[in-house]
C-alpha cells in the first residue's frame, strides 16, 4: 500500500509540475524516477519512451503505466496512471469553470483572440516537426498526401486511415525486403 501511494504521489508531482507532455517531461521524469526514487535507470526511461511512441495513447501516461507496472504489478500501473492524470483533471476543471465566468470581460476576450492566433502558429510548428520526423522517402510523401486527401474529401474515419497506413507500411517493407533479396 505504501508503494502504491508513493507511485501515485510521484506521478502526481510529475503531472503537476511539467508543461507540455511528451519529450518536455523527460527531465522531470529522470529527476523524480531515476535520481530521487531510483525505480528505473535513465536508459529504461528512454526505452519506455520508444515504446510509448509506438503504442496507442499519451506517451507520458504510457511511461507512468509502465513504471507503475514494473514496480507493483497491474495495480501499480493503475495508481501511477491515476497519479499522472489527477493534476490535469483538477487544474483543467478549475480553469474551465473560472474561464466561463470571465468570458464577458473584454480584456479576457481580446487576450483569448490573441492566444488563439499564436496557438495556430504553434500547431503549424507541430505539423512541420512531425512531417520532418515522420517522412524520410517518397513512400512517406505518398502516404502523407493520401492521408491528407482522404481526411479532406472522404468520410473514411480517422481510425481507419491509421489502420490502413499501418498495413501499407508493413506491405511496403515486405516488398522492399523481397526486392533486396
Amino acid at each position, binding site marked *: 500500500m505504501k508503494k502504491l501511494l508513493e507511485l501515485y504521489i510521484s506521478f502526481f508531482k510529475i503531472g503537476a509540475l511539467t*508543461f507540455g507532455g511528451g519529450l518536455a517531461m523527460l527531465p522531470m521524469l529522470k529527476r523524480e524516477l531515476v535520481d530521487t526514487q531510483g525505480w528505473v535507470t535513465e536508459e529504461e526511461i528512454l526505452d519506455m519512451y520508444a515504446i510509448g511512441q509506438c503504442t496507442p495513447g499519451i506517451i507520458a501516461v504510457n511511461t507512468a503505466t509502465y513504471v507503475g507496472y514494473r514496480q507493483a504489478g497491474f495495480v501499480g500501473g493503475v495508481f501511477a496512471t491515476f497519479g499522472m492524470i489527477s493534476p490535469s483533471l483538477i487544474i483543467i476543471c478549475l480553469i*474551465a469553470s473560472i474561464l466561463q465566468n470571465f468570458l464577458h470581460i473584454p480584456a479576457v476576450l481580446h487576450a483569448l483572440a490573441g*492566444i488563439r*492566433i499564436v496557438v495556430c502558429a504553434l500547431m503549424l510548428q*507541430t505539423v512541420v516537426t*512531425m512531417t520532418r520526423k515522420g517522412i524520410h522517402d517518397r513512400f*512517406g510523401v505518398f502516404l502523407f498526401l493520401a492521408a491528407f486527401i482522404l481526411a479532406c474529401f472522404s468520410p473514411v474515419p480517422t481510425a481507419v486511415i491509421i489502420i490502413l497506413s499501418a498495413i501499407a507500411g508493413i506491405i511496403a517493407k515486405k516488398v522492399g525486403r523481397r526486392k533486396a533479396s
Partner: protein
Amino acid sequence: MIYFQLIYEFFKIGLFSIGGGMATLPFLMDLTTRYDWYTAEELTNIVAVSESTPGPVGINMATYAGYNAAGIPGALAATLALVAPALVIIVIIAKFLENFSENATVQAAFYGIRPTVAALIGYAVWELLKITMVVTVGGAARPDYIGIVICLAAFGLMQIKQLKNLHPLIWIAAGAVIGIVLQL
C-alpha cells in the same frame, strides 16, 4: 446517454491516437461534426489552455473537452476512457513482449503510421486555421488579415534557432499581450 457516448468516443481516441498528445487533435476535430459538445472555435481555446497548463497536453485536451460536454463527470468519463486502452496494452507489452519497439513488424507499421499521423494533424490544424483566421463583419465573413499576419510572424519567429525551444507558455503569454494591446 452523454456519458456512454463520451466513454465510447474517448476510448476509441485512446485506442487509435498514436504518437503523442497532438495525435488526438484530428479525433477531437471530428467530434465537432458529430456532437454539440464543443464547437471547432472552442477547440482552439481547448488547445490553448491545454498547452499552457501543467500535465500532458493530450490528457488536458480530453479533460477540457469532456468538461465542456458534461461538466466534471464528463471530464472524468472522457479522461478515464482515454487512458483505459493504453493501460491494458502497456501492461500486456511489459509482461509478454521483451523488445516490442525493435520488432520488425512494429517498425514497418510505424513506417506507414508516422507520415499519416502528420497528415491527419495537418488536416485538423488546417480546419482550425480556417475557422480562426476569419472575422465576421456585419454578417459577411472575410479573412482576418491582422490575425494571418500575426500568425505568420509568430511561425516565422519559431524557425529561428534561438527561439525554437522556447516554451509554448511564453508564446501563449505573448499572444495574450498582443491580443489585449491590439484589441483583437
